[in-house]
């Protein structure tokens, strides 16, 4: 039986893992390679490394960090941040990533999704969407506003229609972050996640708001997520992926155990 994935996310700035609350208030949480290895050992089904300042500062993804992190990792490894072209993606794949996540650059030029998919396969392209509910819209959830540059800049795109276009262009997965919930530890935006997941036929990874086991049960059930991302709940020893999955199994969620 297919299992729900628990994905450990490392937000990286200047080669260090950091964690913010609603995209600000950054604090240091360790070395990326060490953290990734620990998460894999402790049962994470996948690792995502996001260079959160790459786009903002126009800096290339830290290939060295990727290489070092990939070296001892034998679970799927996705890298995002600052990937603007198929050539940028190629360097990240050569450094050891299995997937790349694109966000701002894909919104600026949606053909980027087609280009990376053509060269490396759809399974290698994750389109990250940062969205915030729009109370002014007819449907505040489906029409959640899409932001770029780490949540700093509003676009004219809406969550569901952009996810559908990404899929049509050959995205393999959607990584959906609720900006309303990110960093709050008050739970995922299950309505937003379900709206996107039901609109596409590719996996949706829910992100933003994880704080308790019940939040994960909720997003896999009501939120119809195929995978969920967690960062802050792991970094400070609050929980490991394994203990999270053991609790999820008790609640009836299908997860990879033993792991």
């Amino acid at each position, binding site marked *: *039986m*297919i*299992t*729900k*994935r628990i994905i450990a996310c490392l937000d990286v700035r200047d080669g260090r893992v950091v964690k913010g609350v609603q995209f600000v208030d950054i604090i240091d949480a360790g070395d990326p390679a060490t953290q990734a290895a620990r998460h*894999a050992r402790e049962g994470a*089904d996948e690792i995502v490394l996001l260079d959160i300042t790459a786009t903002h500062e126009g800096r290339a993804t830290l290939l060295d960090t990727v290489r070092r992190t*990939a*070296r001892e990792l*034998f*679970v*799927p490894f996705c890298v995002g941040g600052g990937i603007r072209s198929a050539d940028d993606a*190629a360097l990240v*794949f*050569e*450094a*050891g990533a*299995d997937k790349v996540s694109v966000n701002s650059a894909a919104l600026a030029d949606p053909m980027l999704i087609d280009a990376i998919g053509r060269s*490396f*396969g*759809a*399974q*290698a392209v994750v389109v990250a969407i940062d969205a915030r509910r729009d109370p002014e819209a007819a449907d505040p959830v489906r029409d959640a506003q899409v932001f770029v540059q780490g949540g700093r800049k509003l676009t004219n795109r809406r969550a569901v229609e952009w996810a559908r276009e990404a899929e049509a262009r050959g995205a*393999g*997965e959607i990584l959906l972050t609720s900006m309303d919930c990110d960093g709050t530890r008050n739970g995922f935006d299950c309505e937003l996640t379900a709206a996107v997941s039901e609109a596409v*036929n*590719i*996996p949706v990874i829910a992100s933003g708001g994880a704080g308790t086991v019940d939040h994960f049960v909720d997003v896999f059930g009501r939120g119809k997520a*195929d*995978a969920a991302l967690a960062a802050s709940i792991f970094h400070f020893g609050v929980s490991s992926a394994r203990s999270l999955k053991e609790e999820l199994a008790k609640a009836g969620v299908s997860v*990879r155990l033993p*792991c």
Partner: protein
Amino acid sequence: MRVTVIDYKAGNLTSVLKALRRCGAEAEVTDGDLSLVESAERIVLPGVGHFAATERLDATGLTPAIRAAIARGVPFLGICVGMQWLYAGSSEAPAQPGLGCFAESCARFPDGQEKVPHVGWNSLEVRPNSRLLAGVEPGEYVYFTHSYRAPVTADTAAVTHYIEPFAAAVERGNVMGTQFHPEKSGATGLKILGNFLKWKGTE
């Protein structure tokens, strides 16, 4: 343990090479040097992406070289599209023939309640006496990412369920394949690659 990895320009090989080397293999890559296939001790054909990309194997002359190596008894492992290529073909690219070691064809998962592609960790039901999957316990998980799959037949070494049962691994003589990615399947995947590398080639 020397292993020749075939590069047909369909996705990156970094993860496969890294995992094979981690298992102690001395891995070399060829994207058309037939002498490396002719002298190969073991061959791995990785693969991500589209079945049509296997056309390059025909264009470079790798197809007959691999066919001859298999006939000589060289252990062969196809991964993902590399496994699908062992069949007669795939509805993903009907004009492109596979190697035809297995007579069946690959087809897309039916549309319905579940999403296609099948992405994530799923369990294996290993058939008795599989050499490739020796030591893999019932219910161990491996990582999949694919939309097309091979049918369950007498040559199936492991069955996985998604929408319906399909061949997660195939094995006959020196020819083996996995639909999943052993290089991305943690300790279980490394164990499977180790089995392939250690297999002596004698029945």
